[in-house]
């Protein structure tokens, strides 16, 4: 009985995979760790996202699009994981929103992501996530999300206003 070599879509060429992994693996892992706040979870998520990258590698016209793609896909993938697990719920923590100017410095990624999940508008989520968690500037966010700097500023203000409204509702 003759044997056959594996030839499935998910198969990997070890040399190509290794090159890609050593180039971008750390970047994917870093994004996942920021969101999932767990090394094990980040490692698992990194595996999934790397496979997506590997399977889509031919579609990039040039490498300059890969890094923004990694930021975008990592964020979407990890947010989906959180949604599926219902690990985070919107929790109002008055202490962390008492001073909006200190927002980006005083609260942890985990708390911030929890708050982002309380916002249902994806564009606002993106603006807040890339500004405060990834700490990217508006030109960089534009490269990832295609939101103009003016739109990003508007979305950040909406987020801050929503925090203020929550404070008002709580009588803080």
């Amino acid at each position, binding site marked *: 009985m003759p044997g056959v070599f594996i030839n*499935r879509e998910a198969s990997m060429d070890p040399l190509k995979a290794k090159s890609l992994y050593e180039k971008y693996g750390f970047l994917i892992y870093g994004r996942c760790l920021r969101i999932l706040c767990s090394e094990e979870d980040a490692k698992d998520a990194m595996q999934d996202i790397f496979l997506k990258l590997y399977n889509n590698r031919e579609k990039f016209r040039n490498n300059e699009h890969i890094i923004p793609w990694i930021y975008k896909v990592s964020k979407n993938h990890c947010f989906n994981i959180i949604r599926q697990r219902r690990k985070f719920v919107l929790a109002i923590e008055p202490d962390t929103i008492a001073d909006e100017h200190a927002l980006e410095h005083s609260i942890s990624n985990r708390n911030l992501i929890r708050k982002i999940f309380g916002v249902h508008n994806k564009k606002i989520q993106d603006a807040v996530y890339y500004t405060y968690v990834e700490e990217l500037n508006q030109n960089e966010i534009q490269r990832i999300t295609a939101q103009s700097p003016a739109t990003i500023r508007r979305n950040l203000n909406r987020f801050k206003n929503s925090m203020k409204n929550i404070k008002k509702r709580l009588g803080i």
Partner: protein
Amino acid sequence: MNTDTKNHSVDKLAIAAYICGDIAEDEKYRLEQHLHGCSECKAYCEQVRAEKATFLARYPFESFQACVPQNSKNIIVFPIMYRFLALAATLVLVVGGPLLYTALKQESYHGIKGGAGIKIAVQNLAGDIEKRIDNTYYPGESIQFLYSCSDKNYLILLGIDENGKVSIYFPDAHDSSIALQKGADIPLPQSIRLDEYIGKELFIAFFSDKRLHVPDIRDQVLTAFNDARSLEKLSVKKNDAFEVSAIPIIKIKPRQ
């Protein structure tokens, strides 16, 4: 890249591209000039470089490779029409074997996501892929394990012989289990070449939706073996933590 070293924010995407080698020559030159005069960007660049080095030291490609399918001339599977025969043979081995093991039962899975199982393909001494209807193998033959799981699960695969010697086949002996990608009949990265040992051996695959620690599982198997005092009476049952799939084999002397 903003070349103003006094009034700018660090361009993190550009620095990431620089570290990844995804930057055009002219841009690279401009960035390097900028880094020379901007301590903030230079510090961030060094930070990213260190993150990359730490990541690769901690999670080298080889550890990642162990849990994804790959193209390799060492990996062989049965042609499609023989897969059913191989599956049937495996089921016969699992269900009809003389040993008391918990076979996979679709309706009673717990401790794993979806269904999962393992089967084997064998390459005989002549180099041909063979249908093996009994559980008899020969030293020098190569066994390729193929796993199937309908969702991401963790796997530990080990073998135990009649003397109680445990061999860890997947992953490394001191590691934790590694998450498998879902799919059907996916070969594990390495095939196993059967050594000169003659006698019975049991391959046991532990699937779980949670990470398992290899030394813990090995200890459980050894404890069960010491209690049973023989492979025939050994019972490794599934529990809340994992699901078990077992394949008993007998190795005999090569045909003359």
